[in-house]
């Protein structure tokens, strides 16, 4: 164990004299590029820092506390799923006009969260955004876990859960027919399962060189065995690297359209229906923007505490956070535009049902949910116009949480549009039950449990890629970018 005092390490390694100004890589200096990794880590240093989390004998106490809380919530979730299976969907608050309630709200919410990871790892990779390397692994892990949470809800929300596999096109005598390929719910099944598979593959493949590092550093036989199997015999030969990078690029190219397609198809669940307030063409882009918006907010919410608990501040730098905050601001504006355009279209379409659906959303019985949604998603991210807020870790977390509250309420507002559709006789209100509430909280428990285990046992930073950016950083220095670093 060595002291993580950034400044000390900085001075030891580089013997630089301008420590204070260089540490904050969020300062825009037109004359030079900001460093992506601070702290002047060399290759070994990166390996040391990242591997240490998995190798340290005892993780920080806060890790245990968090794990205890989230594991308990996961257990509650499990118990409630048991209750649900035993008694029926009636344990939730769903009713006659609002046939879909919180389970679908949670599903769309978690799928949305699951967007940032693949976006960061695939799209930013293709666009050669090298700052992604510091955060992509954790973001991808978050994606996987969020999609697990997301996939769970539609699975358990159906009335006869024991027949869930009828949703899949299984050529069997027993079912003796295909599912209905016209149904958006079926598209959903394909979209989410494909997305999950590709994201998992992408995540795992990207991890192989790092797992090999873990394997090589292992001191116990068990670790060596497990990481050895996971590393798939990676030796780091040039041929391995060549194959790896080709495959990575291909997977990135495959994953990129998926980032857009998943939430597009999720939005079809609503847009393809004839429910006023759902049947709108703006839903696909608006859902994707919202998904990226909430996904990045979740990444921030997770990474800011993580970088401080596990002392990764020099790899996940302020600049990373700031960049993500900028994306949040942009997507927040997109979402805000969508909210506004929806109103315009509702009026412009001349469809009285549509117009009422939107009036009802904002001024009807669920006006409070609409207010939460609008202020969290549109007003709050406007604070990011200020650099002080953009680069403030506390504010980033606060705003990240608020954005996700807002995004959860966005899905709530959309689903609750059902409460007043065509015939006023069937209008009704929706009240969640305690099961609804505890299952949402429980899904956070599941998500956090998985994430905490990930922090402890898997490389949270893509070491090999970060090392690549160090090389890049050095080369750029040669080109005159970082004169004083040279």
């Amino acid at each position, binding site marked *: 164990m060595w002291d993580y005092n950034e400044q000390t390490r900085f001075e030891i390694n580089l013997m630089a004299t301008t420590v204070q100004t260089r540490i904050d890589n969020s300062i825009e200096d037109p004359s030079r590029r900001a460093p992506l990794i601070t702290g002047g880590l060399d290759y070994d240093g990166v390996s040391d820092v990242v591997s240490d989390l998995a190798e340290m004998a005892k993780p920080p106490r806060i890790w245990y506390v968090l794990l205890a809380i989230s594991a308990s919530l996961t257990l509650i979730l499990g118990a409630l799923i048991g209750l649900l299976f035993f*008694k*029926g*969907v*009636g344990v939730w*608050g*769903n*009713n*006659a*006009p*609002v*046939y*879909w309630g919180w389970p679908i709200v949670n599903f769309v919410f978690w799928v949305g969260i699951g967007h940032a990871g693949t976006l960061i790892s695939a799209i930013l990779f293709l666009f050669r955004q090298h700052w992604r390397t510091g955060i992509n692994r954790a973001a991808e892990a978050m994606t996987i876990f969020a999609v697990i949470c997301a996939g769970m809800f*539609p699975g358990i*929300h*159906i*009335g*006869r*859960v024991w*027949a*869930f596999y*009828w*949703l899949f096109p299984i050529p069997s005598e027993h079912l003796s*027919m*295909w*599912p*209905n390929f*016209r*149904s*958006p*719910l*079926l598209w959903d*099944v394909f979209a989410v399962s494909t997305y999950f598979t590709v994201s998992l593959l992408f995540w795992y493949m990207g991890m192989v060189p790092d797992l090999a590092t873990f394997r090589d550093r292992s001191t116990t036989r068990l670790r060596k065995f497990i990481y050895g199997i996971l590393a798939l015999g990676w030796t780091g030969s040039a041929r391995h690297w060549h194959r790896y990078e080709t495959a990575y690029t291909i997977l990135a190219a495959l994953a990129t359209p998926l980032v857009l397609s998943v939430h597009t198809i999720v939005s079809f*669940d609503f847009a*393809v*229906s*004839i*429910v006023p307030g759902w049947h709108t063409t703006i839903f696909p882009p608006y859902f994707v923007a919202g998904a990226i918006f909430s996904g990045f907010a979740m990444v921030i919410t997770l990474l800011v505490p993580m970088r401080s608990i596990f002392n990764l501040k020099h790899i996940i730098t302020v600049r990373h956070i700031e960049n993500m905050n900028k994306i949040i601001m942009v997507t927040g504006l997109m979402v805000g535009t969508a909210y506004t355009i929806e109103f315009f279209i509702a009026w412009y379409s001349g469809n*009285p049902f549509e117009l*009422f659906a939107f*009036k*009802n959303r904002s*001024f*009807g*019985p669920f006006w409070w949910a609409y207010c939460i949604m609008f202020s969290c998603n549109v007003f709050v991210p406007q604070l990011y116009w200020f650099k002080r807020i953009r680069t403030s870790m506390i504010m980033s977390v606060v705003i990240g949480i608020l954005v996700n509250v807002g995004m959860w309420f966005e899905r709530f507002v959309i689903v609750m549009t*059902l409460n*007043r*559709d*065509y*015939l*006023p*006789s*069937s*209008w*009704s209100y929706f*009240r969640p039950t305690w099961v609804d509430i505890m299952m949402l909280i429980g899904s956070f428990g599941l998500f956090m449990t998985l994430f905490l285990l990930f922090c402890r046992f898997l490389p949270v930073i893509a070491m090999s890629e970060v090392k690549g950016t160090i090389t890049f950083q050095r080369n750029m220095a040669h080109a005159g970018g970082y004169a004083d670093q040279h």
Partner: protein
Amino acid sequence: MTQTQKNNESNGKRYWRSVEEFQGTRELDALIDQEFGSAAPPPTDGVSRRRWLQIMGASMAFGATLTGCRYPAEKMAPFAFRPAGRTPGMPETFSSMLEFGGFARPIVATSYDGRPIKLDGNPDHPDSGGGSDSFTQATILELYDPDRSRSSSRTGESGQVTVTWNEAVNNFKSLLTGSGVAILSEPVGSPTVRRLRGKLLASNSSAQWFEFTSVSADNSDAGSRMAFGSAFRPVYKLENARIVVTMDADPLGTDPASIRLTRDFMAGRDVDHGKMNRLYSIESDFSKTGAIADHRLPLRFKQIGSFLAALELLIDGTPGNLDSHLPYNEKVLAAIAEDLVANRGAGVVMVGNCQPAEVHARAFRINSKLGNIGKTVHLVKSTAGSDLSGVDQLKQLTKMISDGSVTTLVILGGNPVFYAPFDLDFGAALKTIKNSVHVSVYRDETSRECGWHLNAAHALESWGDGTSVDGSTIIAQPLIEPLFGGWSTIEFLAMLTGEADLSVADHIHDAEHVNDRHDEDASRQSHHGHIHIVGLATVQNTHPGSPGSDPNKAWQTAVRKGFIEGTVAALESPALLEMTLAADDGQWKTSWSSGDPELIFRPSGSIYDGRYANNGWLQELPDFITKLTWDNAALVGPATADTLGLEHGKIVNLKVAEYTISMPVYILPGMANGTICAWLGYGRSAAGRVAGDADYSIDSVGSDIRPLRTSGNWWSVPTVTVIPTSTSYTLASTQDHFRMDELGREEINRRMAPEGKMIREGNYTSYAEFLAKHPIDDHGPEHKHAEEEHGSDGHAAQWPEGRHLHFANFDLTSAGWKNDPVAYKWGMSIDLNKCTGCGSCVVACQAENNIPVVGKDQVNRGREMQWLRIDRYFITDEGDTDGANPAIARQPVTCQHCESAPCETVCPVAATTHSDEGLNDMIYNRCIGTRYCGNNCPYKVRRFNYYNFTDAQTFIKLPGADRLGKADLQLQSMVMNPEVTVRSRGVMEKCTFCVQRIQNTKILAKTEDNRKIHPNEIRTACQDACPSSAILFGDIQNPASDVAKAHHNPRAYSLLEELNIGPRTRYLARVRNPHPAIEPVSASVAAH
């Protein structure tokens, strides 16, 4: 055991040879002993499977051939000798009778394998014409109610002792010859009971017979005594009436004659053929009749008589032209007078039972003056046994009990302890009598105060007779052997009066407690047969048939038809007496603005006076106006509520003298200012597991209003102290109440009227003009009107006020489903002009399609399961945010079977698909319950099984359901229609257009030389039940079918047709007939 019985036994065994079945029987027997053994008092009579077989066999026998009843020994025979007309597995129908409000209702029961599962009106009798009401429909559930009394008992020294009927008969037969004998019954409609009453009273001159019930025609009888000198009952001929004025009367709602009155009223409203009456409704509550009235005037209870006095004055003087500047009340009064005078002999003034006798008397006088008597108002002799009102009779009886002059009291049916005026404290008086007996289907409040309780056979289990509205004699035949044993009232009386010989049944009763089950079964078998013979013989004695003809044949014809022809009561034309009635005091003009309001009592539209309280179907049937289920409430108008500080859903305490009742407030627009209305029948403490049973600590459903209903304040309390509280109470209604957010209320108004298109209504004047140009018979599939006639929309055959949309240019649907060459295209039409919102169709659908009851909590969560609902909308004038007198629009909504159904495309597992005949089919075993179809249904007619609602045991929320044993559940499941799948939890369901009936008819047609189905051959359950024939069903491409004609009616429109989903159900716009000089209540609706 006789030789015959042995043979039958072996026959039976041969038929039911399956070993498993017999083993199952043994297990079940043990189970039943275990289940029923725990109930108190110890029941002796469970329902075993073997018993079921016997019952079924028996009922088949007597059902098929009447003579079968006389030979009980042949009961096991039917499978060896197939009864004529019976095909195993095919349903059979039998005519019978139910009594409601003192009148016999002719019914037809459908039986499957001897098990009655469905009741409908008898189409051959004018009282029904095939229509029925929710009470009739739901009675079948009562038959299989596990809470029915299973045994007779008396209070011994150490609690309840089980007794046999024989013991009771022996005991009371001797007592009845002594002194201090009184008999209390509900008003007697049955000729046989009347005959036995005469016999009994003749044999003991000191005995007294009292009649009492909670809702009766006493005031009308008293009124007619004032007007004519003796009691006459008005029989209204509404089909002949052009002007109908109801004064606190509800002929289309809770009136006992409502089925007939609805049918006749709607016959007089056949707009398509130029018949249109006008209905004025002056009332203090908001009734179904008020909701359909062309002009409705809410007045306080007290003001009604004064209004009628003013009306009489106006009729006596010649009514002049209407001054349009008059206030609404005066204008309505003047209009009524003008209309009545202009339509002498074709008007009716009806007064509700709750109004005092003087008001009735005045109405008789007005009808007489206008020459309506004998034309629209027929008078027949009242069957009341006494000149005293029921309340006065009960008062007298209570007094006699406390005097000690009554020592033996026989209570035949009814539930006087629950119904009695509170001040009489009849229950306490009853307790003091040593020899009291209550013959009842339930061990209810009265039974629990009586020394003896005898479990009566249900009306559907016994022979009987009754008097219909028009006075004709209706015959009741048993449809099944008594499930829990028991005798009918007639049988009991026959035994008491010595008309039947008790010794016939003696040895059977002795054998009843023999331990050998085998013998016991055999004895029961013959025992019940004998009882049927007693009932049958007694009823037959009353109707000996016309001399000279074959009495047997006449009797058989009567039973088959369900009534005896030519027994319609003779018309009376008594002379009007001189009466001095109070002059018009002008009170009706004053409006209430502050002070203590009045409280009125009305029978509930769901459970009437409480006699149907333990019926889950009825408890869950939403009241038409309030849409309230499982509760009664203090109904109060918005303005009154504001004045009194009342809030919707908050408990209010209503106090009169030292008595206070607490009930939730329901704010109902259109209630008369200063009036609070409360329904009878709730708050029962000894009804059963559904409505409340103190013995099992099951909470009562609703609030008990009895403390304020005293003999002095029988129908209304002049002033009541209102104490609002802040305690909230959950009212489970199936539709939003009036006081919702303003945004929603405005939108509802907009969608309904004027530019709204959901419920279309228009004016008779314009419709008549339209029809004059385009006679109704011209309207067919090919008919088009010239463009210049109705605007430039390329006009189809539509009446402009129907506001049919013309989407010819935007019709994106493929021509496929329009020009598909299929054999049949099923479709439905619902005439909004005929629908009264009575709810008969809702319960009929529930009975036909095995729809579960979900309980108050689930209704409150919006999970009611009825496939058919009747939407109700308040339409208020612009600026009338108070809803002082809103119009009401109604619309029964069920699956519309869209041609391009939105539900079908979104189901991921293809569980809902389209049949080539246009049905939107639901495949229950394919459904996994994603509920997407429900979301995407624009009519929201799909219903989801959020729990396992069918199996009450797992559905613990239904009060007391956890106490239902397996045998009880089996008993309940006997009401299930075997043709319809019972749905499990997690499955979506909805209206199928009664696909089982379609399929059965198709099979029938196939077996009959593969013929085509006749145009109107298939009838859905809702169509069968509708008393006004508002619902039509059939093949819409067959021009001969009624439904095809209705689809081309100029009033026809599709709901939400702008969605281009092609619903197969079309609605026929309602036509209002307001007086030309009065702006209709909702100008925006009618004056388009």
